[in-house]
């Protein structure tokens, strides 16, 4: 084991040439089914390497190939090109059929995150069954976010990087039609008229928007 693999230690060796770093990134991403963060790549590569820069080159190299370098949240992964899916019948995994309720709940969480159960129910007009949320949690497509700072401190739900990976999204900002929905005001949590806009409610909305922009912006 070369000593210079330890990122904190001062190394007497120079960093490998960029072409070599690109090879290393290639090997690391290639070997893993899970997306790998830049940080982890740097930790595994010899001291002085810059995985982020090497990745730019690697990504270009794989453009138009049968395998692509894709971004998933703050990590990177290699995935086959979607147009070649027809070759992979053997590898196809039967995704559990999701109920309409589950699909809608997932979409609401993705587009409105962080969102409370009450808000999901408000949007769908029906109560959310425990099973639906459990199923999405179990698939690791959603997870608990921070608690809302409103009375009762309800938990919120957000989507995960597994969700992004499954749907081939670089980030939650890339959700289809997100911009249009937002500008149409359809991602707002408008209180029904007549309910006094309680201060706490406003706080909630403010915090929610803050949370959302935090989630969707770099």
């Amino acid at each position, binding site marked *: 084991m070369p000593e210079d693999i330890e990122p904190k230690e001062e190394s007497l060796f120079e960093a490998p040439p960029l072409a070599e770093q690109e090879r290393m990134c290639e090997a690391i991403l290639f070997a893993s089914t899970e997306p790998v963060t830049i940080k982890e790549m740097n930790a595994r590569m010899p001291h002085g390497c810059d995985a982020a820069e090497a990745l730019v080159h690697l990504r270009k190299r794989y453009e138009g190939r049968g395998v692509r370098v894709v971004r998933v949240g703050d990590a990177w992964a290699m*995935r086959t090109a*979607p147009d070649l899916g027809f070759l992979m019948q053997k590898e196809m995994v039967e995704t559990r059929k999701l109920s309409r309720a589950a699909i809608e709940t997932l979409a609401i969480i993705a587009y409105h995150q962080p969102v409370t159960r009450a808000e999901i129910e408000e949007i769908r007009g029906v109560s959310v069954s425990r099973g639906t949320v459990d199923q999405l949690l179990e698939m690791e497509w959603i997870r608990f976010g921070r608690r809302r700072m409103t009375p009762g401190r309800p938990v919120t739900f957000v989507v995960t990087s597994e969700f992004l990976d499954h749907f081939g999204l670089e980030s939650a900002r890339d959700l*289809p*039609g997100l911009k249009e929905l937002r500008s149409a005001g359809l991602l707002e949590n408008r209180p029904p008229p007549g309910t006094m806009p309680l201060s706490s409610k406003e706080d909630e909305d403010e915090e929610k928007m803050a949370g959302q922009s935090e989630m969707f912006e770099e």
Partner: protein
Amino acid sequence: MADEDFEETREISVAERLAAEALIVDVDGFEGPLDLLLTLSRTQKVDLRKISILELAKQYLAFVEKAKRLRIELAADYLVMAAWLAFLKSRLLLPPDPTEEGPSGEELAAHLAFQLERLQAMRDAAAKLMARDRQGRDFFVRGIPEDVTRVRKVHYSATLLDLMQGYARIRTRDEFRPFVMDRDSVFTMEEALDRMRGLIGFAGTWTDILNYLPVGWESDPKKRRSATAATFAASLQLVKEGHVEIRQDDVFTPIELRRKDEGYA
């Protein structure tokens, strides 16, 4: 109220009534009143933004009425919605009463329209999401992943100090023993006082207090130490009582004492 509603159902076209009947048969397929309202709104064949909420309310109430006539049990939330829509309808139809509090019929209708539009938007978004290229269906992960082995390298550390302390600990261990009072080599202050009271009368000049050590206690270091301490303590007691004077020229020089005569004081 019921009569009025009944009257109004007659105004609804045959086509709509047929549609309503089809809906009733399918009532289990709806996910609550909002879902049903969204389906009903499609019969208006207009953009959701231009939907007539008044019309929609009429459609819904006709649906509930029809279900009642067909003796179909509707869940409570459908009836709650019916009551609310009846209220909304009356608000929309009657001229606004300025004395009345609360939101206007238009505001309530606008909010319902918003809810319907938002639900529809989420359904469209969900469909778009599910239609994306998906992992395991359209694109695939590495089939033969290579395990990343976690190498745990333990680095033991020890300093020179640890080493020396460790050694010193071993080499001095035998020298330790539990603390016990060695009575036979302890000279108490009371004994020293007794001895000195007897001798003090002869101390006219400055004398080293070590001269007052009892005989046989000078050579053994343990005995000497105890006797010295006791004698010193006794000397201080005698000073306190006013019998003697004590002095020391410098640090670590001999401590001397002499009898305190009234004449010298």
